[in-house]
C-alpha cells in the first residue's frame, strides 16, 4: 500500500497526522495509556477502511478504464517540467491495479475451484531441487458462508533428474489420511544400486482424493454441529429458563463426534441411553447401536439408520424428532 500512500491526494494530510501522533508520543514521556490505545485502535480502523476502499476502487470497472486510458496516454513524450502529477503516478497505479486484478482472480479460483497451486521458495540453502517447492492450497467453505483456514500441502522433487514429487511439508491434521493417500498416488521410487526405478505418480488423483477427505471431514463436523443445534444443545441454560413455557422438554443430552475423523457419532439421551452411529464416506449411516438400561433400543436404532438403511447423517435429527414429538 506504500505506493498508494504516495499517490492518493489525501496522503499529505495523513502523513501530517501520523507525524503529529508520533510527535505527541515522543514528547510525552508518560503518555496516557488509555488515550494511546484509543488512538491506536482508531488509526487501525481507519487504515483497514482505507485499504478496503483502495481495493474496491482498484477493482472497479470505471477505475480500470481510466487507468487504461492513462496508460495509453503515458508513452506520449512530455516535457519533464510540465509533467502533471497524474501522469507521474500513472505507472505505480497501473501496476497496482494489475496486481489487484490478479489477486481478485486468484480469490475467484480459490473460492470456486477450491484447489489452487502456487510456488514457494524453500528458505533452506541446502534444499533439494534449488528450493523449488510446489504449494497446493485446498480451500474448504464451512458453514455460514465462511472459509476455513486453507489446508496446504507442499511438494518438492527430491530425486535429481526425475519428475517425481514428494510431500515436503503440509498442514493437514493427522485425522486425514495424507500418508496413505501419498503412498498410493505419489509412490516413491525404489532405488536399487543408484538406479531409480520409476513409479507412476498421479498428482491430480492425489489432490482430488485429499480434497475429498478434507471436505468429507468438514461436512461431517458441520452436520454434527447442526445436529447439536437441532436439539438445542449449545444454548445457554439461562436463556432456556426464561422461555420455559414454550420450550419442549430436552430429550437428547449430548451429540458429539466420538473419534478424530468424526466418522462416529455419539448420542446421549437424557434418560441414560447411549447410542453410537458409524458414518460412511458419503455421509450415510452405516451402523448404529443404542443401549439403554434394559438392553438395546431397536426403535431409535431404526430411526437413526433410516428406512432400508438409506438414512443420511444430516437426517438423523429429523428422524429422531419424528419419534420424540
Amino acid at each position, binding site marked *: *500500500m*506504500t505506493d498508494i500512500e504516495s499517490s492518493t491526494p489525501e496522503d499529505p494530510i495523513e502523513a501530517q497526522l501520523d507525524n503529529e501522533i508520533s510527535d505527541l508520543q515522543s514528547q510525552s514521556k508518560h503518555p496516557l495509556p488509555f488515550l494511546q490505545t484509543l488512538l491506536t485502535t482508531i488509526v487501525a480502523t481507519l487504515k483497514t477502511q482505507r*485499504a*478496503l476502499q483502495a*481495493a*474496491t476502487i*482498484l*477493482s472497479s470497472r470505471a477505475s480500470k478504464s481510466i487507468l487504461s486510458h492513462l496508460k495509453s496516454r503515458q508513452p506520449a513524450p512530455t516535457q519533464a517540467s510540465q509533467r502533471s502529477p497524474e501522469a507521474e503516478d500513472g505507472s505505480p497505479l497501473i501496476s*497496482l491495479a494489475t*496486481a*489487484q486484478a490478479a*489477486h*481478485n482472480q*486468484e*480469490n*475467484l479460483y480459490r*473460492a470456486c475451484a477450491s484447489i489452487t497451486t502456487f510456488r514457494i521458495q*524453500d*528458505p*533452506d*540453502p*541446502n*534444499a*533439494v*531441487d534449488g528450493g523449488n517447492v510446489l504449494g497446493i492450497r485446498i*480451500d474448504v467453505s464451512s458453514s455460514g458462508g*465462511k*472459509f476455513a*483456514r*486453507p*489446508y*496446504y*500441502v*507442499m511438494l518438492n522433487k527430491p530425486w*535429481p533428474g526425475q519428475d517425481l514429487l*514428494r*510431500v*515436503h*511439508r*503440509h*498442514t*493437514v*491434521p*493427522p*485425522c*486425514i*489420511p*495424507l*500418508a*496413505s*493417500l*501419498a503412498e*498410493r498416488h505419489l509412490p*516413491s521410487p525404489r532405488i536399487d544400486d543408484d538406479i531409480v526405478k520409476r513409479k507412476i505418480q498421479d498428482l491430480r488423483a492425489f489432490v482430488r*482424493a485429499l480434497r475429498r*477427505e478434507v471436505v468429507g471431514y468438514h461436512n461431517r463436523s458441520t452436520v454434527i454441529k447442526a445436529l447439536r443445534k437441532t436439539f438445542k444443545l449449545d444454548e445457554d441454560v439461562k436463556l432456556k429458563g426464561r422461555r420455559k413455557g414454550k420450550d419442549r422438554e430436552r430429550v437428547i443430552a449430548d451429540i458429539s463426534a*466420538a*473419534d*478424530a*475423523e468424526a466418522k462416529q457419532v455419539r448420542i446421549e439421551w437424557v434418560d441414560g441411553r447411549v447410542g453410537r452411529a458409524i458414518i460412511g464416506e458419503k455421509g450415510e449411516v452405516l451402523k448404529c447401536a443404542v443401549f439403554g438400561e434394559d438392553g438395546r433400543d431397536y426403535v431409535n436404532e431404526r430411526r437413526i439408520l433410516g428406512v432400508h438403511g438409506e438414512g443420511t447423517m444430516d437426517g438423523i435429527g429429523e428422524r429422531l424428532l419424528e419419534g420424540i414429538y
Partner: protein
Amino acid sequence: MSLLSIPTNAAFSPAQLLPSSHPSVTKTLQRLSRASLLALTLDWLSDQNQESELTTPYLAEPDSEDDEQDPYPAAHSLFELREIYTELQSRKGSKRDVVDRILEGDWRNGITLYQLAMADMQYLYDHPTSQKWTALKLVKSESDVQNHKKAATSVPRFHPATFLRNLQREVLPDIKVHYNLDRYEKLGLTILRVFIVDSPYNTSLALQSTSGRRAMAFDTSRTFYVAFPDAAPYIYISLTTTVSTIPGSSISDNKSLRSLVLDGIPKAFSRPRDRYSLESTNLSARNLEAMVEKRGGARSNAAGGGWGIYAEENKKDTPLNVHLPTPDSLHEHDGEKEQAEKVTGMKRRIEEDVQVVKRRKLVARGRFGNSAKQDDGKGIERFEVMIRDPFPSSAHNSRDDTPLDMPVEETSNGNGTKRKGRRSTFDLELSKQSEDDVEAEGWRPNVRVVFQGKHIFAGVRHLVEEGLLDGERMPGWMTGDEGVSVGLVQSGRIKGFKGSGL
C-alpha cells in the same frame, strides 16, 4: 482391607491406603506449594471425590469428645473441614503446617493411592517441565498395511477403560500397577500416571513394608506418565533417565518394569486385524506445549519453523479477502520494536545501520516465521544432530552439488549463549580439480553438534537477528523445521525416512 494377601495379577485398587507416615507420602505432598496443596485438599473434599469414597477424611464419631492431646482434633463434618481449609487458604502460614495437618490430622488413617496420584499430577501441572517427554508414533504393523486397500488414517481410537483393561492384561503378574487417568484440558491431553511396585500382592502388604528393597518401590523412577494427545497417532512417554530407549528392545534391562508396561501400550491399542507398534519420532523435550505443537492433533505437525505461517491462525488468508496482500504490517511492527530497543539497548547498538538490522530481522522472519519467539513457551531444551556429510573439500560429490559450508556451533554451558566457531573456507574450485581421483564417498568426519539452552531455536533466531549468524546461509535444520530433537544431517538436511512431512 483384606486380611489375606494372595499373589494375583490384578491391578492396585485406587482405594488402597498408604500409611501416612510413609516417607514417600510426605515427600510427595511437600513437593507442592502451599497454595496448590490447599487447592488439592479442597478437591479431595469436593462432593465429586467424596462420592467415589477414595478421599474420605478422618472424621470424629458423632458423640465422641475432643481429645485434649490431639494437636489436630478431628472435624465433625465435611462442611466443617471444608471451612477449615478454605480459611487456611486466606491465611498466611507455612506449608509444613498444612502437610502435618493432612497427615497427622484429617487423613491420619492413610492416603489412598488415588490421592497420591492426584498430588503427583498437581505437581506435574505446577511444574510442566519437570518431566522429559519422548514422542512415539503409533504405526500400523507392516502386514496390516498391505492388507488395507482403502485409505485409512492411523489414528487409533483411544477409549480409556478398554485401553486400561487391555494394558493390565499385558502386565506381568509379578509387578503391581496403579493407573490414574487425568485430563489436561489446556493442551487437550489425557495423561495416564503409571505407578509400579515390584510385588506379587495388590494389598497393603506390597506397600507397607518399609525394610530395605521394598521401600525403594516409591522411588520416582517407578512412576511414569503417558500422555495421549487428542486426535493424534502419537503418545508421549516420560522417561526420567534413559532418553533413546526404543520400547521392546532389550537394551534397558534395569528399566525392565517400565519397558514391560511400554510393551503393553501398543498391544493395548491393537485389535484383531488392526495391530499397532510404536515407532520413534526423534523428538523429546521437557515442554509439553512444544510436544503438542509438533506431534499433536492440529495442523502444525509437519510445518515447523518458517513453514508455521501456513499452519497458524490467519484471518486474512481466505478467498473472501479483497485486500492486496502487503508486507506492510510486518514493517510497522518491527519498526516499533526497534525503536523500543534503541532507547533501552546498549550504546553500540545505535551505531549499527538501521537498514541492516531491519534486513536481518526480515531474514529471521523468513526463516523462522512466527515460531521460535523467546516468550512463546514452546522451547526445546536440547537439540542434537550428527552431521554425516563428506568433508567440504570433496563436497562436489554430494548429490545436489551445492557447496557445503556449514558453521560449526559450540555450546557454552551456563546461560545458554552460543559462541560461533570456525567456519571452513576452502576454495572449492581449486580442490575440485586436484581431488578428482579421490574416492566418490570422500572422508566423512564424525561431527556431533549439541545445542542446549532454555529455548534453542529462539536462541538461534536471536543470533540471526543480531547478525552473528548469516540467516540466509544457515542450514534449514537450525530453524527447527523438521520438528525433531535428534537428527542425522546428510547433504545439509535432516534425513527423513519417507518425505519429511509424513
